[in-house]
């Protein structure tokens, strides 16, 4: 247990003041029907900046454009269609109950709160479950080619952490198809002139004037030009920060810079330690590895996870008889079997590998076996469901999963933490809204599978466009010019930082620092965290950060496409975030969801929460040392209980 003063200080508690009172099921309706509106003529005079063009940013920019706001959307990629939402494979949850299997908004709400290990806000989660239904309708209308049955109706499958079949999917490319739907809606608005799209631009600072978020400083990644864009509101949709671990399933370009710069300008950062380790990724094959590849969790529907019963068994899988295999998830969690939530599956996997029963190079892997499913369903059905995933696995590893079991191991996948937002998705800086993975709101300490797509689209299509009006109804705000002193200083701070990175001219590459930072984080702030380990990590991060600022080598200039420079800026921000993550993980001495503190576990090794002490959101204020503001979580409808999937 750490105490304020050593790494942080305690601040005033905070609370969400925007969620209406009254019955949970009526809050969103109430919020929508009583919130202030902006009349259409005024919308044309209001500028909104959206940073990021993934499911959340893309859908928000498109919808705000449809409403008539003047929208400008920025992304670092060469096209909004490449945002990392595209890589989500498995599916999207929605409480449609098309299966008549007892699903409902209440049940999705319950599963999400429970899956998040009782560290999320009831009002937000209920709204998410409610809106999930509309998302599917919207996407179908846009032409998203969801999987269908022979009768022409939508097919669903079940996913980890749920006992109903509520996951809609488009083969193994659900994220891609949903993103293309949002991208097409976005390009429609570009064509209509309501959205201006700026690709290959990176936000490097937030402009705050008189306490309001009024614009951003961006760098044109092709020309290096640093410019400012001023508006009435700024929406951040920059995604998650899993790349702080260097090796993760995130795209190489994913970064925390937009969120972190906003944090430095005053937005609170909530629960940074809550990261999700995905149980089914392709294991690391060597030091050259640049990223990890996810194998969709949906594979656990039909695949069975096992390791040899005896440590050090080096036989090929086919030679290991049935009674010498340990189907450890089915054994430990009979009710959910292979479909236990991600954090539980990941830790169970780590545990058997720590026992010396892991398979493959380095013993960091377990089998995911489709032999039974192939016998039961036949190869055509398996091909139909997972064909592209099997091909991808074979391309990367050279092994054919139809013949030999896949090998999988956990990898960093998603970050539940993010900028703190209220019910309206507004950060602590008025006028700064945060949506999608970039905010902390709905997943608590652990996200259920197929819920990220749901949340990104809920925020972008339905929530933000309805809540941002209450803020913009007071606008347009005072006209600003680029000559305003706060604008000038933000812009020159960005230019100075770019110059600083270029001028160090040391002897170590950006990537070598990133790799080393990632190793520290994976070792001490990964699947299992300890007090001593986190203290050590903070020390190591600080000294590595100092070394970075004296020894990093960034070739080239700032006035061109310079990918080393882009990475250097992002890694510099990761250093600061990494330290805060470790401080957050250190202060939260309980285990919950994806945050597992070795000191706090049940006798059989499950995460043990300490509700009396930690039933709050840790919202951090940027300062030296950071200031902790607690948002206490109250549960009126759900009763926090020890999660049990056995």
């Amino acid at each position, binding site marked *: 247990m750490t105490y304020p003063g050593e790494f942080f200080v305690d601040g005033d508690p905070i609370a969400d003041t925007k969620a209406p009172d009254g019955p949970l099921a009526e809050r969103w309706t109430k919020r929508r029907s009583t919130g202030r509106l902006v009349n259409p003529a005024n919308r044309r005079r209001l500028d909104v900046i959206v940073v990021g063009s993934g499911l959340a940013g893309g859908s928000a920019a498109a919808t705000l454009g449809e409403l008539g706001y003047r929208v400008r959307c920025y992304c670092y990629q060469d*096209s*909004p269609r490449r945002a990392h939402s595209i890589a989500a494979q498995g599916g999207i949850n929605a409480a449609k109950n098309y299966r008549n299997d007892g699903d409902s908004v209440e049940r999705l709400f319950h599963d999400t709160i429970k899956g998040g290990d009782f560290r999320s806000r009831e009002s937000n989660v209920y709204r998410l479950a409610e809106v999930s239904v509309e998302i599917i309708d919207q996407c179908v209308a846009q032409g998203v*080619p969801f999987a*269908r049955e022979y009768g022409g109706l939508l097919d669903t499958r079940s996913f980890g952490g749920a006992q109903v079949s509520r996951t809609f999917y488009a083969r193994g490319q659900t994220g891609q198809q949903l993103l293309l739907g949002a991208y097409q809606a976005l390009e429609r608005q570009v064509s209509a002139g309501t959205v201006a799209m700026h690709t290959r631009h990176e936000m490097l600072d937030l402009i705050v004037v008189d306490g309001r978020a009024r614009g951003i400083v961006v760098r044109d990644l092709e020309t290096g030009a640093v410019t400012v864009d001023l508006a009435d509101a700024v929406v951040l949709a920059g995604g998650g920060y899993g790349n702080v671990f260097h090796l993760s399933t995130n795209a190489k370009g994913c970064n925390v810079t937009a969120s972190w710069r906003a944090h430095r300008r005053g937005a609170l950062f909530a629960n940074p330690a809550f990261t999700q380790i995905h149980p089914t990724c392709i294991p690391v094959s060597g030091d050259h590895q640049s990223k990890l590849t996810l194998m969709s969790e949906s594979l656990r529907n039909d695949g069975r996870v096992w390791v040899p019963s005896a440590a050090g068994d080096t036989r090929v899988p086919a030679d290991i008889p049935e009674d010498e295999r340990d189907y450890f998830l089915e054994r430990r969690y009979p009710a959910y079997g292979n479909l236990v939530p991600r954090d539980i599956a990941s830790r169970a996997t780590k545990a058997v590998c720590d026992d010396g029963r892991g398979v493959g190079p380095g013993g960091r892997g377990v089998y995911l076996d489709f032999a039974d499913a192939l016998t039961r369903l036949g190869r055509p059905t398996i091909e139909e469901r997972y064909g592209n995933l099997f091909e991808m696995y074979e391309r990367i590893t050279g092994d054919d999963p139809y013949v030999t079991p896949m090998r999988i191991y956990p990898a960093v996948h998603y970050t539940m933490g993010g900028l703190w937002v209220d019910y309206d998705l507004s950060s602590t800086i008025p006028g700064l809204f945060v949506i999608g993975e970039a905010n902390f709101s709905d997943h608590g300490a652990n996200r259920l599978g197929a819920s990220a797509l749901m949340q990104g689209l809920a925020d972008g299509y339905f929530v933000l466009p309805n809540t941002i009006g209450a803020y913009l109804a007071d606008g347009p705000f005072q006209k600003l010019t680029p000559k305003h002193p706060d604008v000038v200083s933000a812009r020159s701070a960005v230019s100075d930082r770019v110059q600083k990175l270029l001028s160090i001219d040391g002897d170590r590459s950006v990537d070598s620092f990133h790799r080393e930072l990632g190793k520290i984080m994976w070792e001490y702030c990964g699947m299992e965290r300890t007090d001593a380990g986190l203290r050590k990590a903070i020390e190591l991060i600080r000294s590595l950060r100092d070394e970075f600022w004296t020894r990093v080598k960034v070739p080239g200039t700032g006035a061109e496409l310079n990918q080393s420079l882009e990475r250097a800026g992002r890694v510099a921000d990761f250093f600061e975030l990494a330290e805060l993550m470790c401080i957050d993980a250190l202060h939260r001495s309980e285990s919950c969801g994806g945050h597992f503190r070795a000191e706090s576990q049940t006798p059989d090794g499950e995460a043990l929460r300490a509700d009396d002490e930690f039933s709050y959101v840790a919202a951090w204020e940027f300062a030296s040392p950071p200031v902790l503001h607690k948002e206490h979580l109250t549960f009126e409808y759900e009763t926090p209980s020890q999660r049990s999937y056995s």
Partner: protein
Amino acid sequence: MKLTLRIWRQSDREARGKMVTYKIDDISTDMSFLEVLDVLNEQLTATGEEPVAFDHDCREGICGACGMVINGVAHGPQKLTTACQLHMRHFKDGDTIDVEPWRARAFPVVKDLVVDRGAFDRIIQAGGYISAPTGSAPDAHATPVPKPDADAAFEAAACIGCGACVAACPNGSAMLFTAAKVAHLGALPQGQPERASRAAAMLHAHDEADFGGCTNTGECTAVCPKGIPLTVIGAMNHDVLGSAIRGR
């Protein structure tokens, strides 16, 4: 493995570029092609040279960011595979590998292997969508879609917009990309109201962007990492003709 890489280097849009030769050792067969470029870039950074710029992001073959012509073939020798998923086990020790950017007037080189594919976004802007404003949708089950239609739509929708089809086409045509979207939306009941106008408008944007015309050579589908079939081009021609005949 030891390799010799000959890579197109060009400092910016206006500069003249050239092929530059690099030697590189200690390549593992488990590496992806982009990881080889990572190793090369580390080597160049260490010697104070500018690293090779190349687009890449997800590195799992779905974002469509990466793309380079490897030994004359877009995305390299392995079928149905993007450059990021191409592993070095498909090359031999001592190989010389030529790496060039996509070549098309509509895809100007920005730097080294990075090209500007904004023309693809403009083709989508011209009509590659269904006009369904947020909130306007009927229940998802209001219109059943026959499974074969849904499957056909999916097959065409799998396009990742990487641009390999353009790079490989002897005419520099983007017809496979354009037609894939036309075929995807045209196969679904939701896409019918705008079907004819969509095809005509997207074709117009395609031609305006200075892509060449399709001559059905099939080079595009041969290199397409997602295996988009050539039949989508027939679907597009069908819709374009329908549009011309019906005058809309």
